């Protein structure tokens, strides 16, 4: 399973390296969300500084939807999914591989978003380990839940409008806990932030396990 995961992750990442869709489309989109939310909140510097962690996570969540759609689209060519299924690769491995590839892209995206809010909203991360921990845990959860729901909506013609509707409510706890954790990290208040990691850890573990177990049956059913 692990070997297959590495194989699939490598394939997805290599395709991305050639096509550079995440780089040219998802990253600018994320920055765009930052700008648009700033417009929504207004030019008051202190409001923006206060809203910065929430803006970071909303931008991340919307971009995750795009990254998932891209991850699914890579295999939407004629017979590609069937080919993958018939190739004998362990479906759990496919799930882990795709989730790993998406996760890596999300991590890089978070670096860009972090730079974005630091630059645009004039904030600084004071408790670095907290921010990092929250981001890493959240990324695992986002990637796993995302790839799972991506598979759920994969064959459908209404995939592009259905996926956001399905997956965003599911990802809401990550948004909640992530913003709170980052707010604590930006304020320098580690104590209040740590409790929010208690949501992110189970979320990540649950969707990792559920994904490994359900991805295969999901592919068979599609």
């Amino acid at each position, binding site marked *: 399973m692990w070997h297959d995961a590495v194989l699939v992750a490598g394939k997805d990442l290599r395709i991305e390296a050639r096509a550079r869709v995440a780089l040219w489309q998802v990253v600018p989109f994320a920055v*765009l969300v930052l*700008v648009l939310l700033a417009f929504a909140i207004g030019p008051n510097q202190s409001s923006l500084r206060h809203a910065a962690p929430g803006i970071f996570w909303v931008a991340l969540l919307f971009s995750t939807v795009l990254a998932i759609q891209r991850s699914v689209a890579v295999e939407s060519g004629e017979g590609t999914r069937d080919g993958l299924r018939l190739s004998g690769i362990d479906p759990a491995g496919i799930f882990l591989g795709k989730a790993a590839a998406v996760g890596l892209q999300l991590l890089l995206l978070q670096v860009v978003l972090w730079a974005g809010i630091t*630059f645009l909203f*004039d904030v600084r991360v004071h408790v670095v380990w907290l921010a990092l921990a929250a981001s890493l845990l959240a990324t695992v959860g986002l990637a796993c839940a995302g790839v799972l729901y991506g598979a759920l909506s994969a064959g459908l013609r209404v995939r592009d409008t259905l996926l956001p509707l399905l997956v965003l409510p599911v990802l809401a706890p990550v948004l909640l806990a992530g913003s709170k954790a980052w707010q604590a990290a930006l304020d320098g208040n580690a104590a209040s932030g740590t409790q929010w990691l208690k949501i992110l850890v189970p979320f990540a573990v649950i969707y990792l396990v559920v994904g490994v177990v359900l991805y295969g049956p999901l592919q068979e059913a599609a």
Partner: protein
Amino acid sequence: MSAQTMIRRPSWFTVVGVLGVVAMAFTVWLGLWITPPDQFQGNLARLLYIHPAIATVALYWVGLVAAGGSLLYLWPRTRSLFWDRLAAASVEVGAVFAALTLVTGSLWGRPVWGVWWTWDARLTSTALLLLLEIGYLALRRVPADPAIRARRCAVAALLIAIDIPIVHFSVDWWNTLHQGGTFIDPGFQIHASPSMSWTFLLGFVAFSLLFVWFLGVRYQVEVLQDAIGDQELEVSLSERWSEDTDLVGAAASAPTPGPGTGAP
């Protein structure tokens, strides 16, 4: 068009490049060493020898070429892939200059306002322009018949040109309603001595010349890329491009044909 005609470079073009570099060297020399510090802004004013010039290129020259080229392409009388390629070249060069506008602007703003970024109309519209230009460049990379791609990109460029003034106006309004007054133009807070004014002007000339050079080289790259696309290499390239599905996904629409399927 043979390889020879495509590779040949007009001599005036190299001259423009050399003049641009020379003007740039003089601007730097004058700007950093010869001119006196400003009585209000001190040495920070030296950034104003390059920042407004870069911004002018990014907003006005690029806008002129991209919008003008797109219009000329769409107009049947003057339709020619030359205009499309010129517009596309200017958008890429424009994105570089827009990014530099933001960087030099922030570096100037940081010591003055204490923050790296402020949501004033100019900076914000330039930021949005950069994002729109990245969108255009992403659109351009989608494989398609050159004429279709040209039409698509021309419309995109015109929409961007129309949009930026609207954005600028709205952000300006958004800001002034909040601040209750106009944002003081930092450029006017300079008491310019003659050497400063000349350096300022020289900076404009230098960056404008360099813009023409960049535009030319990027245009040549565009022409060469299209030429290669028409030939045998197209086969292996379209294999690579078939992996380049856009976000809407191939499931929702028929797969686009590889490049070069139209008449050369």
